[in-house]
């Protein structure tokens, strides 16, 4: 069964329909079944009562950002005696408003305007806008255009992942941080042999952690260099990074020759060895922490509910139509899917689309009236909260924990909070076993086997296994393996491009006209960190609604109409405080690891209330302040 909470069922031919025995089918009176993943939270009154009865914990008002750039603030109340998190709130502090900027514009502007929604994954937004535009105005890009777009995404992810793994999250596992927050673990690390020393070259975990140090560790500096390699390759097609100049509706406008392809390969192949090392490092880090203290399995733990739209189209299958989206979606190198409680419940893009709703009960927006579309273009039921029906009506106001406290909305799929992750795309692909046959990547149903070619290191087969617990460490481990997965999709894509060149099929874009009348489009795609969708409505060639959902909107979401927290908030609430520093030196490292594991794409600040006052840390940075 695909949906447990939405009253949508399927007829004998698999077509979705709305049950007619449910009054107010999209009303919010009934609490959803969270598949055993319900989260017990204290009410704001209970928190305030607790704070009042424990006079040493102060209730303070504070500026949610420490610096101008802080776009995300994270608040928690921590009981240091019980070593647990009592309350957590995720706050997006900036209104960006791309949906409003897009209103009344030519749809072709979307590619260049929405690219600016992110300073890392601008190319993803460009590409997703191109997909939405193609569906709305009916353009099918030629195969080479699709291949080159796939390659752009590969290269963007290969920039994003190393910087997360070694420049943002990596320092959380470095000598400088662990010495201060958990000296007993550092002591153990210096005495523990690294199981994959033959791959990464570090004899002990201590040596490995020393090279994870921010600014000075060789793994940090190497990642800085690898981001450049990916950027150089990206610019060969995109013209520039992070906002490509060559993305157009119907393909790309870049001229690509054999020489360009070789230039790209020279850079892509550098990631094969890098991927081997990265996976080995994160395997050793995760397993070392689990062995050191099994309770690390609870750091950042959330229900295994993940969602992904898939990415990297089959150049012969993608036709940009909603009518065929289930077919071309399932032919992607990464299979679309929704995972609920660890189980894959659908791989159909239409079902993922139907199940998505966006709520604003705790967000700085006004409700919209009416419902523009009762059904999708195939006649399947759409919620009034669906992005095609949503309107963006900002209403700035002071944050109030009981009411509205963030600019992020609450996207929910089948009324459940979901995790948007690059690991989600490996999970769905591994479980579905639908990906096209190829020499390098094999989904087994419970794992992905990844055959990395020889470079300076010999050929090596890695195997990412679907984890039995979903937590901060597995998010980081998954992202490490995703370097290999992405690089191998890049290799497959490169072969496809060379084959098309050999056949003389070198057209990179299709001609088109913007039609009159009303059209709907949606771009189903993903950033390095996961799920990205753009929903577009056109009227006589003008944008009349535009809605963007990013992975950080999903992960950083506030509580929903039923009081269920978003994924950052759940991850922090489930995190045990294992930090072993003195109370007056408390850093909140466990909470930081849990939030950072989501790869938040915003500069983010954490505020942790303890009985020693408020600890404020930049969560997107390493915790190198811990070594003060």
């Amino acid at each position: 069964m695909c949906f447990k909470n939405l009253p949508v069922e399927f007829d004998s031919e698999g077509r979705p329909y709305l049950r007619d025995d449910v009054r107010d089918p999209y009303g919010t009176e009934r609490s959803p079944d969270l598949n055993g993943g319900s989260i017990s939270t204290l009410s704001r009154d209970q928190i305030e009562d607790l704070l009042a009865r424990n006079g040493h914990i102060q209730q303070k008002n504070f500026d949610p950002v420490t610096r101008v750039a802080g776009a995300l603030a994270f608040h928690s109340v921590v009981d240091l005696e019980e070593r647990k998190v009592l309350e957590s709130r995720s706050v997006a502090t900036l209104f960006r408003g791309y949906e409003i900027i897009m209103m009344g514009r030519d749809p072709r502007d979307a590619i260049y305007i929405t690219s600016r929604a992110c300073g890392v994954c601008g190319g993803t937004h460009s590409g997703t806008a191109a997909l939405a535009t193609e569906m709305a105005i009916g353009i099918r890009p030629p195969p080479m255009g699709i291949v080159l777009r796939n390659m752009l995404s590969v290269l963007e992810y290969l920039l994003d992942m190393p910087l997360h793994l070694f420049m943002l999250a990596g320092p959380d596992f470095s000598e400088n941080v662990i010495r201060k927050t958990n000296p007993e673990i550092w002591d153990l690390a210096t005495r523990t042999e690294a199981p994959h020393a033959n791959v990464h070259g570090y004899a002990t975990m201590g040596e490995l952690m020393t090279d994870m140090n921010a600014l000075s560790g060789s793994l940090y500096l190497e990642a800085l260099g690898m981001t450049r390699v990916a950027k150089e390759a990206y610019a060969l097609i995109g013209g520039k990074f992070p906002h490509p100049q060559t993305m157009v509706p119907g393909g790309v406008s870049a001229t690509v020759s054999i020489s360009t392809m070789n230039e790209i390969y020279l850079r892509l192949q550098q990631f094969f060895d890098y991927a081997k090392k990265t996976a080995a490092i994160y395997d050793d880090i995760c397993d070392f922490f689990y062995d050191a203290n099994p309770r690390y399995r609870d750091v950042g733990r959330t229900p295994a509910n993940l969602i992904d739209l898939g990415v990297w189209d089959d150049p012969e299958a993608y036709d940009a139509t909603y009518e065929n989206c289930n077919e071309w979606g399932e032919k992607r190198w990464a299979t679309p899917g929704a995972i609920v409680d660890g189980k894959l419940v659908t791989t159909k893009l239409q079902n993922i689309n139907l199940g998505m709703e966006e709520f604003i009960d705790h967000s700085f927006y006004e409700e919209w009236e009416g419902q523009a579309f009762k059904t999708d273009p195939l006649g399947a039921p759409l919620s009034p909260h669906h992005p095609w029906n949503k309107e963006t009506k900002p209403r700035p106001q002071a944050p109030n924990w009981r009411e509205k406290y963030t600019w992020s909305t609450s996207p929910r799929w089948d009324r459940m909070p979901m995790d948007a992750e690059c690991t989600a795309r490996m999970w769905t692909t591994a479980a579905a076993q639908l990906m096209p046959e190829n020499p390098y990547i094999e989904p087994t149903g419970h794992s992905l086997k990844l055959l990395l070619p020889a470079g300076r290191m010999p050929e090596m087969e890695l195997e990412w296994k679907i984890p039995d617990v979903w937590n901060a460490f597995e998010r980081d481990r998954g992202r490490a393996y995703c370097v290999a997965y992405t690089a191998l999709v890049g290799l497959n894509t490169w072969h496809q491009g060379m084959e098309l060149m050999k056949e003389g099929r070198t057209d990179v874009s299709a001609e088109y006209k913007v039609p009159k009348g009303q059209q709907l489009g949606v771009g189903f795609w993903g950033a390095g960190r996961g799920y990205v969708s753009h929903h577009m409505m056109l009227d006589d060639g003008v944008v009349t609604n535009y809605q963007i959902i990013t992975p950080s909107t999903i992960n950083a979401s506030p509580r929903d109409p039923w009081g269920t927290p978003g994924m950052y908030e759940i991850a922090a609430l489930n995190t045990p405080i294992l930090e072993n520093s003195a109370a007056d030196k408390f850093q909140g490292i466990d909470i930081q690891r849990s939030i950072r594991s989501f790869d938040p794409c915003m500069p983010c600040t954490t505020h942790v209330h303890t009985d020693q006052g408020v600890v404020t840390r930049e969560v997107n940075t390493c915790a190198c302040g811990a070594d003060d």
Partner: protein
Amino acid sequence: MILVAGVGYQHLSDFSFGSVLVERMQEMEWPEDVCIEDFGWGPISILHWFEESPGRKFERAIFAGAIERGREPGNVYTYAWLSDKPDPEVVQERISEALTGVISLENLLIIAQHFEALPPDTTVIELEPVEQGWGSDMSEAGQQRLSETIQWIRNDVKARPRSNGNGRKEVRN
């Protein structure tokens, strides 16, 4: 070579001071040893740019942009960038912002300084912004400062003697 770089976002009124400045300067005649660049990019990308020629050739640099520091709005401030190593915690904080897409003159200077990418003789020009909202129009004071700043730069690159040699160390990667 002397590098003159403007840093900022486009279409952000006075915060576009650096971008508009280099746009105007690029339309003018300058001595051959003056290189004018738009640095409205992420600081990490600029760090990578510095690793490459012509970055290695620069003996001097002038960076311009708008920064809000609570000074008299509409005034321009110039100063020599300090050569002390920045606090590592601050560097990592700024790198984090840079990696997540923030374009900032100060972040660029701090990051480039940490990685020893700046020429030894680096001057900063800052406009204290008057208008800070969206839009292509700068404030009247901001526009006036543009012309004055261009003249100041012209005088500066003419008047100040070149230092001998570069002196910067290579950027590690």
